[in-house]
């Protein structure tokens, strides 16, 4: 009687342990695999992969700088737009919104976050791009087109469009987290400020914002991480070209990010070993950046919850 339960106990325990260790191991395995596949590129391309401006598989030249810059620019641009939007939404949610509206906002955020990237892509490609081109980019090019970053032909598919789409994609995530954080402001501190005759905005600014600051930054960093790794929507609207930033600095030019480069060139790279290795190394660079960003955000969020 004693043996059977003990056997099952071990079975469950070690089965669960085995699963956990495999999962933990997979992550390590992933890293090592990518790294080993990048070695040809690391040795043959050297720093050129990170700093080179030209990518030509036929000549064996693999410079990834435009793609790396594309990733950095589009992510920071979209964060720069998404963060004020998310903070505004959090303030509205916690200070002004009636309860029924609050649940509508939560639902809208959740649904926006659930829309598949490829659908953002087709919408960006076939609905927004033509509209953006005619009603935004062309007027701008006509009026202030002498400014370099707005110059040149108004392509619809551009790093500008990619950044806009990314903004819409990461705002829900940052907003949801920020709302959570703002909502945790202790009630007795808010009441203390109200009792002094403060307006809702003053209570928010003087009590809620200092309290929420660190958490909102962490949320922003998480949103940034999401933008960095976003593939499909970006690949479908960015134009997939190395024109930006070295042939034209205009944000209305087509460009590449690491993800769009890897996604679009991957099929042809299976026959070119160095090309494949170079794309893998670019992916590795992205992985390292993403993980560092997530680590920073995690550390900040942990300090928020611990310190309160």
């Amino acid at each position, binding site marked *: 009687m004693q043996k059977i339960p003990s056997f099952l106990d071990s079975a469950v325990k070690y089965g669960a342990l085995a699963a956990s260790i495999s999962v933990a191991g997979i992550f390590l395995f992933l890293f090592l695999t990518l790294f080993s596949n990048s070695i040809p590129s690391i040795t043959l391309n050297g720093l050129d992969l990170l700093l080179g401006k030209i990518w030509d598989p036929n000549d064996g030249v693999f410079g990834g700088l435009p793609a790396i810059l594309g990733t950095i620019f589009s992510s920071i641009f979209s964060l720069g737009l998404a963060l004020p939007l998310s903070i505004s939404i959090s303030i509205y949610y916690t200070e002004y919104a009636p309860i029924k509206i609050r649940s509508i906002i939560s639902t809208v955020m959740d649904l926006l976050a659930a829309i598949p990237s490829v659908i953002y892509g087709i919408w960006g490609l076939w609905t927004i791009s033509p509209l953006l081109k005619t009603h935004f980019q062309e007027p701008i090019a006509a009026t202030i087109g002498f400014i370099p970053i707005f110059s040149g032909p108004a392509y619809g598919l551009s790093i500008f469009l990619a950044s806009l789409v990314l903004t819409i994609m990461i705002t829900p995530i940052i907003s949801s987290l920020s709302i959570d954080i703002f909502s945790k402001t202790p009630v007795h501190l808010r*009441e203390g400020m109200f*009792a*002094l005759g403060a307006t809702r905005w003053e209570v928010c600014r003087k009590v809620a914002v200092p309290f929420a600051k660190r958490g909102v930054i962490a949320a922003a960093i998480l949103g940034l991480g999401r933008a960095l790794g976003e593939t499909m929507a970006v690949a479908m609207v960015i134009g997939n070209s190395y024109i930006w930033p070295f042939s034209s600095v205009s944000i209305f030019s087509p460009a590449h990010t690491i993800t769009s480069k890897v996604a679009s060139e991957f099929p042809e790279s299976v026959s070119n070993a160095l090309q494949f290795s170079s794309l893998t190394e670019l992916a590795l660079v992205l992985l390292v950046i993403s993980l560092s960003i997530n680590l920073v955000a995690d550390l900040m969020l942990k300090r928020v919850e611990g310190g309160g």
Partner: protein
Amino acid sequence: MHHKLEVQNLSAWFDEKQVLKDVSISFPSNNVTAIIGPSGCGKTTFIRCLNRMHELVPGARVQGKVLLDGRDVYKDMDAMEVRRKVGMVFQKPNPFPNMSIFENVVAGLKLLGVRDKKILSDKVESKLREVGLWEEVKDDLKKSGTMLSGGQQQRLCIARALAVDPEVLLMDEPTSSLDPASTAKIESLIRELKEKTTIVIITHNVQQAARISDFTGFLYLGSLVEFGETKKIFESPKNPLTERYVTGRFG
């Protein structure tokens, strides 16, 4: 006798639940009025209606009149102005943790737009002296407000409330979370403050009410049972319910 604050037929609800039933009280100026009653009788809700804090809760509703010097606090004034004139000290001391002692005291003044450094530091000194905290913290004004003991924090909160020169000060069980020594300090402070301010204090400690208040109102299950001079309420209450409560036979 002039009544600074007059409450007429005040009723209050949280959603469907009625917490205050038709309460009418007149608060004499420059006197301490205590509101006593067992837990859940509506005392806190009552004073939160006086400075329009009750309405901050979703689903809260108020009916009746609250007059400050004859002006209807709900219809003739906006909430910000009311709260500046009718200050509040809370049960649990709540100094702002991200602000220094100095900044805590002047928090209300800064909202009013006062920026002059001399005016602010004079105010800090005079208010901290008033609450008897100046000698204890004068060298540590830049330290965070939360570094102080419970009693000191509460006195800091009183200084903060006084800094905007309110006409009425509402105190919601201000000493219930403090030790006896701090309690004594704050009680003597209250006796001094009434010369300049009208004070309404909620307490579940009937001895405290007897010690420091001039007038007392007894609230039970949301209704006012009896109101009058403290001496009369304690020595010869008219209502048997009042008598049972103040002699400690229930609640």
